[in-house]
C-alpha cells in the first residue's frame, strides 16, 4: 500500500499526463490553423514558468514575484543570438554602422559590446539561456535564504528585483533595445523562423520541452526532496532540526523554477519573434503567479491548463471587451484566493474525480470493492 503510493506516476497523474499530451500533440495541432497554433505555443511558454512556481510556491511555500526576470533573461539570451544573426553587414547596410543590431545604430553605438560577442555562438547562447538565469537565481537565493529572508519579504524583494531589471533594460536602450526590446528576429542558423512550417515545428519543440520539464518537475515532486519542500512549508524549523540545511533546498527549488522559466522565455522569443521588458517587470511577473494559482498551486498539470486558459481568456477578452478584462483578472486574483484556493486542479479533484470514480465503481464494482458482492466468487462457491 505504502509502496504503491510512492510510485512515480499515480493513476491520476498518468491520466493527467496522457490527456495533456493528447491535447498538446494531437487535438490542438489538428484543430487550429498555424496562426492560432502559434498563439497557443506562446501561451504554453508561460506554462514553463507556472510549473516552476508550483514547485517553489505550491510545494515549498516560497512566493517569487519576480519570475518574469528569469523568463526575460532566458528570452533575451535567445534574442541576442538571433539579433546578431539578423544583423549581418548585408542585411544592415543602410545603417551608419552596418553589421551591428539596428537599435545600437540608432543609439550612436558603433561596435558590438564585449558582453554581446559570445552570443555569436549558438552553443554558448543555448547554455546561457539556462545558465544566466540560474546563476542569477542562485545569487539571489544564497543571499536571501542563507539570511532566512522568506515569506512576504522574499516576495517584495523579488518584485523589487523585477522592477530594477525592467528600469535597467529600458534605461540602457543602446545595449538592450530599450522599451521596444529586441525585435525583428529572422533566422536561426539560416533557418527562417517566421514561416508557417517553422512555426509548427517550433510548436512541437516547445511541447516536447514542456513535457521534459513536466517530467523533471514530477521527478522532484515524487522524490523525498518534494516531500521535504512540503515539510518546509508546514514547519520549517522542524525540518531544520531534523538535520537539513533548509536554505540549500530553497536555493535548489528556486533555481529549478528559474531554469524552467528561462526555457519558456527562450521558446517565447523563438515563437513570437521578439523579446521586450514588458515580459520582465512587476505586472507580468505577478500575472505568472496567477496562472499557477488558477491551475492549482499544487498541481503541475493544472499549471499548464491555468497558463492556457488565463492567456486564452486574456486574448479573447482584451480584444472584445478591453475594460472587462482588467476587472475579470482582478476578480480572478480574488476568487482564486478566497473561493477556490486549489484552482482548477482542486475543483477537479473535489467535484469531477469523485464522479468519475463513482461511474467506474458502478461499472466494475468487484475491482474496486472486493469485500462486497463479487459475482465471480459467488459463482465459484456455488460450483464447489
Amino acid at each position, binding site marked *: 500500500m505504502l509502496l504503491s503510493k510512492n510510485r512515480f506516476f499515480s493513476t491520476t497523474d498518468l491520466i493527467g499526463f496522457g490527456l495533456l499530451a493528447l491535447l498538446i500533440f494531437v487535438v490542438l495541432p489538428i484543430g487550429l490553423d498555424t496562426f492560432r497554433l502559434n498563439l497557443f505555443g506562446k501561451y504554453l511558454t508561460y506554462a514553463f514558468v507556472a510549473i516552476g512556481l508550483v514547485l517553489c510556491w505550491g510545494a515549498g511555500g516560497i512566493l517569487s514575484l519576480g519570475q518574469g526576470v528569469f523568463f526575460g533573461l532566458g528570452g533575451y539570451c535567445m534574442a541576442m543570438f538571433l539579433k546578431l544573426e539578423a544583423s549581418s553587414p548585408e542585411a544592415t547596410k543602410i545603417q551608419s554602422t552596418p553589421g551591428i543590431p539596428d537599435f545600437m545604430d540608432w543609439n550612436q553605438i558603433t561596435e558590438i559590446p564585449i558582453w554581446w560577442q559570445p552570443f555569436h555562438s549558438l552553443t554558448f547562447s543555448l547554455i546561457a539561456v539556462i545558465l544566466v538565469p540560474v546563476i542569477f537565481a542562485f545569487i539571489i537565493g544564497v543571499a536571501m535564504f542563507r539570511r532566512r529572508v522568506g515569506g*512576504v519579504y522574499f*516576495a*517584495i524583494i523579488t518584485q523589487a528585483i523585477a522592477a*530594477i531589471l525592467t*528600469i*535597467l533594460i529600458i*534605461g540602457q536602450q543602446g545595449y538592450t533595445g530599450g522599451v521596444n526590446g529586441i525585435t525583428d528576429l529572422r533566422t536561426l542558423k539560416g533557418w527562417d523562423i517566421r514561416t508557417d512550417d517553422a512555426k509548427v515545428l517550433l510548436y512541437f519543440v516547445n511541447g516536447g520541452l514542456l513535457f521534459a520539464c513536466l517530467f523533471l518537475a514530477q521527478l522532484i515532486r515524487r522524490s523525498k526532496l518534494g516531500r521535504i519542500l512540503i515539510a518546509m512549508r508546514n514547519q520549517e524549523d522542524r525540518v531544520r532540526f531534523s538535520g537539513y540545511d533548509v536554505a540549500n533546498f530553497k536555493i535548489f527549488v528556486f533555481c529549478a523554477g528559474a531554469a524552467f522559466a528561462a526555457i519558456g522565455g527562450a521558446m517565447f522569443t523563438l515563437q513570437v519573434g521578439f523579446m521586450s521588458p514588458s515580459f520582465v517587470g512587476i505586472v507580468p511577473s505577478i500575472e505568472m503567479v496567477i496562472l499557477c494559482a488558477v491551475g492549482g498551486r499544487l498541481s503541475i498539470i493544472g499549471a499548464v491548463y491555468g497558463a492556457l486558459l488565463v492567456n486564452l481568456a486574456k486574448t479573447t477578452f482584451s480584444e472584445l471587451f478591453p475594460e472587462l478584462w*482588467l476587472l475579470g483578472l*482582478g*476578480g480572478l486574483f480574488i476568487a482564486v484566493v478566497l473561493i477556490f484556493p486549489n484552482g482548477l486542479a482542486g475543483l477537479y479533484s473535489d467535484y469531477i474525480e469523485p464522479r468519475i470514480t463513482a461511474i467506474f465503481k458502478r461499472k466494475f464494482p468487484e475491482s474496486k470493492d472486493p469485500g462486497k458482492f463479487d459475482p465471480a466468487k459467488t459463482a465459484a462457491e456455488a460450483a464447489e
Partner: protein
Amino acid sequence: MFADYTMGELGAIFAMQGFAGLILFSVFVLMALGLAIIFGQMGVINMAHGEFMILGAYVTYLTSNLFADYLPALFSMYFFLAMILAFFVAGGLGMLVEWALIRHLYKRPLDTLLATWGLSLILQQIYRSVFGAREVGVSIPDWMMGSLPLTDMIEVPINGIFVMVLAVGISLAVYIMMFRSSWGKQVRAVTQNRVMAGAVGINTARTDRLTFGIGCGVAGVAGSAFTMIGSTGPTAGQLYIVDTFLVVVFGGAASLLGTIASAFSISQAQSVMEFFLSGSMAKVLTLLTVVGILMLRPQGLFALKLRK
C-alpha cells in the same frame, strides 16, 4: 562627475536636489505610514495601497472642481476639506475591503498579497471608467503657487513646503494615535497576542477593521498631498507601490521612526543621484542599494532582537 561644478554650485545643487528630495520624502512618508500601520501592525501586505492613495487624489480633484463651480469665494481653502474627505472616503473603502476580503486571509499573508493585487486591478479599471484614462490635475490655490528665494541660487516652491509640513503633521498624529492613545494600545496588543487581546476584552475584529481603515485613510491624505506636486491617473498609484514597500521593509516593519528614517534616506539618495546620473540609473542604484542592505540586514534598520 563633480569636477565640472564649483563648490558654490555644488552646494546649491545639493540644496535644491535635497529639497526636491524632501518633497519625494513627504510622499514616501505619507504613503509608507499607512502601509507601515497595516503591514507592521497587522502583517498584511496591501498591494492596493497605491490605489487608495489615488482615490484620495481623485477625491481632492472632485472637491476642487466643486469649489471652483459652486464656491469660488472659498476656493483657496478647498484643500483642507478635500483632505478630510479623502481620509474618510479612502478609510471607508478600506474598512469595507477589510470586511469583505482581508479578514478571511489573516493567516495567509502571501494570499493577501495576491488578493489585494486583484483589488488594485479592479480599482484601476474603475478609475479609468469613471475618470477616463487621461491624467487629471487640480488647480492649486494662488497662495500655494510660487516659491521662496532663499539665496540667489536656491529657491524652494511653496507647495513643496506645504506638503512637507503636512507630512510631518500626519506623522505626528499617527505617532500619537499609535503610542499615546488607548486605541493604539489596543492595536499593539492585538498585534502582539491576538488570542490574549481577545481574552481581555478587546474586540479584535473591530480593531483590525479600524486599523486597516486608518491605514487606508492616511493613504487617502497622501493622495491629497500628491495632487499638489503631480497629476493623477488611474495607474499612478502602482508606480509608487514597490518603492513604498521597500521604504517600509527597509525601515523595519514595526517601527514608525524607522519608516521615516528610511523614507528620508531613500528619497534623498535618489534625488541627489538623479541630478548627476539619468533618472532611471539613479532609481536602479537606489533600489539596488536598498535590496543589498536588506540582504545583509533582513529585519530592517530599526528592529528589536526578540526570542522567536
